């Protein structure tokens, strides 16, 4: 069994006005990886390439140690996918969706599906068009988790949901990765959710990979330094990842906040959230 559940090497996709530029990242087994980036950064393009929904122009993608195109059907049989909108025919009931999904996935498990419907309080014989957005997302999760999937791919699946439903979903994802053979790739704008559940964060900006690090490394080491121009001018710029000039101060993103606190005692140094790290890269000035 391959140690990494997903390996992306030098992935490129050129749309003319947008290029996914040689992405590299891996997802080990038993982890949740958060894929972050602004709108149009290339998150969905990356996921679409992984799922072969669009043809990649270059690079290699292997899932479960196999090429994602050569073993496409075998691989997809073990992947659960949840998109940001409902793709199930809304004239169907959850039971009817189960009927045709049972004919699509080789390892479909009716008892598990029924258990999820019960757990999510989804009426089995009610048409989906009468469901709320949260119920539709829960149904998509029920389908994604009822066929012995080993990898879950979520593309903005929790956007637009209220915090309670999002919390239910996050709990479910945490349960899913309790099995060390399972992994989750989740693309989301809601970085606070990722801070709760992600083990790794991969950040894409304008089609380029900015970093793919363990979340704890980011949260434990990255920091935001707030200081005046005098301190900023004396700073060793090799320590600066990006900075933003505000009215009366500079805010600087640094990779090692302990070192920054030691070196610049006059500055205010605090931890950086994932959202701040993303904002500095997108809106700040790079060193």
């Amino acid at each position, binding site marked *: 069994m391959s140690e990494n559940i997903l390996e992306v090497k030098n992935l490129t996709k050129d749309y003319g006005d947008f290029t996914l530029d040689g992405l590299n990242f891996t997802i080990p087994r038993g982890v949740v990886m958060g894929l972050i980036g602004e709108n149009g950064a290339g998150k969905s393009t990356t996921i679409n390439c992984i799922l072969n929904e669009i043809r990649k122009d270059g690079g290699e993608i292997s899932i479960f140690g196999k090429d994602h195109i050569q073993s496409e059907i075998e691989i*997809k049989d073990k992947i659960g996918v949840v*998109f940001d909108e409902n*793709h*199930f025919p809304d004239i169907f009931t959850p039971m009817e969706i189960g009927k*045709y*999904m049972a*004919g699509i996935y080789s390892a479909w498990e009716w008892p598990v599906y029924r258990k999820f419907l019960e757990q999510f309080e989804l009426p089995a014989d009610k048409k989906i068009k009468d469901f709320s957005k949260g119920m539709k997302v829960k149904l998509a999760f029920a389908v994604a988790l009822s066929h012995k999937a080993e990898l879950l791919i979520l593309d903005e699946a929790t956007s637009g949901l209220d915090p309670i439903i999002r919390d239910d979903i996050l709990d479910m994802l945490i349960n899913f990765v309790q099995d060390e053979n399972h992994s989750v790739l989740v693309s989301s704008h809601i970085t606070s959710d990722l801070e709760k559940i992600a083990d790794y964060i991969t950040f894409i900006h304008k089609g380029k990979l900015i970093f793919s690090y363990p979340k704890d490394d980011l949260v434990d080491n990255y920091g935001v330094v707030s200081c005046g121009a005098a301190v900023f001018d004396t700073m060793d710029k090799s320590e600066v990842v990006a900075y933003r000039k505000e009215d009366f101060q500079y805010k600087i993103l640094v990779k090692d906040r302990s070192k920054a606190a030691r070196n610049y005692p006059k500055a205010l140094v605090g931890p950086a959230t994932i959202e701040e790290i993303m904002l500095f890269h997108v809106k700040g000035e790079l060193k």
Partner: protein
Amino acid sequence: MKGLLTKDYLTIKKKYGAARLFMDLAIIIALMKVLEGAGAIYISFLLIPIEVTSMIISLTTCDEQWKWGKYAVSLPVSKKQIVQSRFLFAAIISLMGLAVALAVNTITYFCFPEYAYGFYLFIAFASFGMTLLFLAFILPSNYSLGVNAGFAAMIVLVIVIVALGFWSKMTGDAIMWFVVDNFELCIGIFFTAVICLCVISYAISVSFFKRKYA
């Protein structure tokens, strides 16, 4: 594949249902009663092809509404299988159309015995060919430009059939007589052409679908 066929079957069952079935039956009975022997011609060459193709157009409408294609591509089925299943489903309902055409023509033979039974059998199978011909144009149109293109293709084909009917009448049924005089040749050419068109239609549809998700 089985799952995709089940989805199409459930969609048609939900969209059409028993009410539509009874309406179709009522139209068939009314046409046979009012037009007598000629009713079978209209049912075979217009009603059945239109009904079968409108079912396929209806499926495409639903797929577009729910953006099913994007989800289907993420499932453990190949793009080719997705198109294959739609063609298979279309073939199954075309065979059901053939069964209806056979029933209508057999009843017409017994109720209004104007020609030999072979003629009615020919009408039923020609109806099947006509349905396949409709599908051969409509399916790739759906895959290339969406449901509106499929609908437009169906309208154009209906106009062509009606125009052919008028032309045939104006020329004293010259086409029909040509067919009668060269029966085996015409049947051979027609069905060979229909099969070739269906094969081309399938290949083009797969190509359009793959291009859409490339």
